[in-house]
């Protein structure tokens, strides 16, 4: 099972700072999270940055997830 780690703002929303999910690609992660926590909206997850196994990926819908992957959500990063 892959481990999903949330930032403070999502932790405050769902009461968890990490959880395990069974996922093959990142889309499965999002579907699983919204299924468990309807208060999490796809649009709000879409607006966050994601790192899968320490690689930051923008808009990672079909990114492969391994059974031991760590998936971090964090604040969207832009620049100047």
């Amino acid at each position, binding site marked *: 099972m892959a481990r999903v780690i949330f930032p403070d703002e999502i932790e*405050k929303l769902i009461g968890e700072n990490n959880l395990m999910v069974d996922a093959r690609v990142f889309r499965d992660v999002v579907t699983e999270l919204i299924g468990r926590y309807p208060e999490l909206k796809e649009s709000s997850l879409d607006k966050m940055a994601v790192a899968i196994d*320490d690689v*930051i990926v923008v808009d990672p819908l079909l990114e492969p997830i391994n059974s031991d992957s760590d998936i971090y959500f964090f604040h*969207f990063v*832009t*620049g*100047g």
Partner: protein
Amino acid sequence: MKNTNEATDASHYKYIGTRSIRPDGFEKVTGRANYGADLSLPGMIWGKMLRSPHAHAMIKSIDISKAEALAGVMAVVTYNDFPSVSSEIVATGEGTEDLLDLARNLMADGKVLYHGHAILGVAAISRQIAEQALALIDVEYEVLPAVLDVRDAMAKDAPVLHEKMYTEGLAETPNTASNVASVVELKKGDVDAGFAQADVIVEREFYTPTVHQGYIEPHACTVRYDEHGQSMVWCSTQGHFDVRATTAKLLHMSLSKLKVIASEIGGGFGGKTTVYLEPVALLMSKKSGRPVKMIMDRDEVFKASGPGSATRNWIKIGAKNDGTITAMQGKLHYEAGAFKGSPARLGGMTAFTPYDVENMFVECYDVVVNKPKVAAYRAPGAPQAEYAAEMIVSELAARLAIDPIDFRLQNAAKEGTKTIYGPKLKRVGLVECLEAAKNSPHYQQALKENQGRGVSSGFWFNIGGSSSVTLNMNRDGTGTIVEGSPDIGGSRASMQLMAAETLGIAAESFKTIVADTENIAHNDGTGGSRTTFATGMAVVEAAKDVIRQMKERAASVWNVNVDVIDWVDGVAINVGGSEKLSAAEICATADRTGGQISGQGNINARGAGPSFAVHICDVEVDKETGKVDVVRYTAIQDAGKAIHPSYVEGQYQGGAAQGIGWALNEEYVYNDKGILQNPGFLDYRIPLASDLPMIETVIVEVPNPAHPFGVRGVGESGIIPPLAATAYAVSDAINAPITDLPCSPPNVLAVIQANS
């Protein structure tokens, strides 16, 4: 300039790493390059904005009758002319923004929130008539008290800017409106336990003022609305696809009905990643039936475009006597300006990232005040937070009697360091930068009387994102690289060099053009130091696509399987025989072998190219006046691989110059009513060439494993260290702690006198 290439052997590159002549240089020095204000169209009229003389006021009434009656006035546009928009978080060049805030920043909706807030726009047959018309408009205000600092804004009885804004991120949903838009926490380990292990703890609060990016070219656009077909925007922007998306969303237009063309750009530094004029100009054009040009005056640029956040940041760091940092904590307060969305969280994510420390905790406050809505400014949010953290790190090193570079080396982030925002760092070059700093001639040089030295580190992410490139080969074997990333820092030359290296064809054979939104697929904006990294990867993909097609054509000519074709130095070789065909020969006969050759590279660049910088600053302080002179400055930074070293050095020097200005002189000065007192370059003092020594540079190259040539972004990190490097040098020279920027003569003199 020194190039410390410790980790790569660049000798196998033929084109990358060379200092080719910049392709846009001739046009720019001869004045032929076309900037935002340079396009005029037949029948064009001029638009101007009426701006608020107050920092905070209700608009009781607006009378436009006299203006509309003035001969030559073609259109008046107010907030009510915009299609209705509701609160909705949308992706913009700024990351994400609330669409309603974006609309209300373009034009006030019944309430002005800062000095210079746009109230309405007038379009007339000349700029002069438009200005005369503005003077004929009567606006009745009910002036409200203004809040100009996070302390005032967070006070219990503070005037509230937005009656429906409730603080997000609290454990319990508040029932009263607040100027605090959000509170976010970032944590790693246990800071209380970390501080319990510390032998020495230092804590202070630091202030950084509102500053402007200081780009030389003001915001400008020329637009033409066509309700039956294709509307057009020509503008100075870092991201014309973002201008299209935002403008179309605000005006309820289809993306396909709006073409945006990026002009040459005279500086942006993050400040040209959103819209201020374009949607208004399009509404004026729609109303008048004429093309419309708008140009901000410098005064308007300062008052009403997006500056960088002012901050009040408290930092506490503890360390053992042996130099091990045990805990780092921060409470960061960022001004967002009139609408939520400061880079407070980015400050929290970057403040301590140069350090491999187990225990960290940061609270980030996003606070609205009666100032213009902030915009990105090079590594948005990082300079302010890292300034405070680096000042404490240097002070701790002094208290522990450890060399400040050794102290940083002992605690430096490296591959595998877990960041406060979650993921671990991949291969990074902070240690190499610190070692280069320690070994630099500058660091070996002794200081003279009244001089001081500061050292500081800086970190930025350099995220990839979406880039699209087409590489069209010509019949003579030359090619045109069609990209969609506006060239701010020399990316056209870098794209040429990466195409040349991949194809084995001379860089001079390629021309790079920045296409409009109709002629290339979507590109994220030029920002966040992503362009050479991500668009460069798209160029490599397009070049590989061209090589694939070239090999197929050669195979078809020789009637052999493509698997036996090799591609070496721009030539197809039949490894099973002796035949060779150059790129020029293949392109010359392309029609006979299947049509013209064009490569495609449309990517969402995975990974990032995080870059660390380390700066050394020596200053001399006149203790009678408080005047500070920078006498020597060295900027050291990890470029991964410098595609074009001259441009990389230019980025380092530019970042250092802007950061020194931030540290020494730059600040928005408001009176107690919130009226900006210095909206011009005479009174807002950016460094001149005569103010600075030659900025020495050291390019460290620790290749980024996520890029085919090892590139890391270089545009952001270089503005982070100068604040603390310069301020700590002043502190060292006067033997007194500096907390508030800028270190302008009166401020420094006050610190000297307070400590004498």
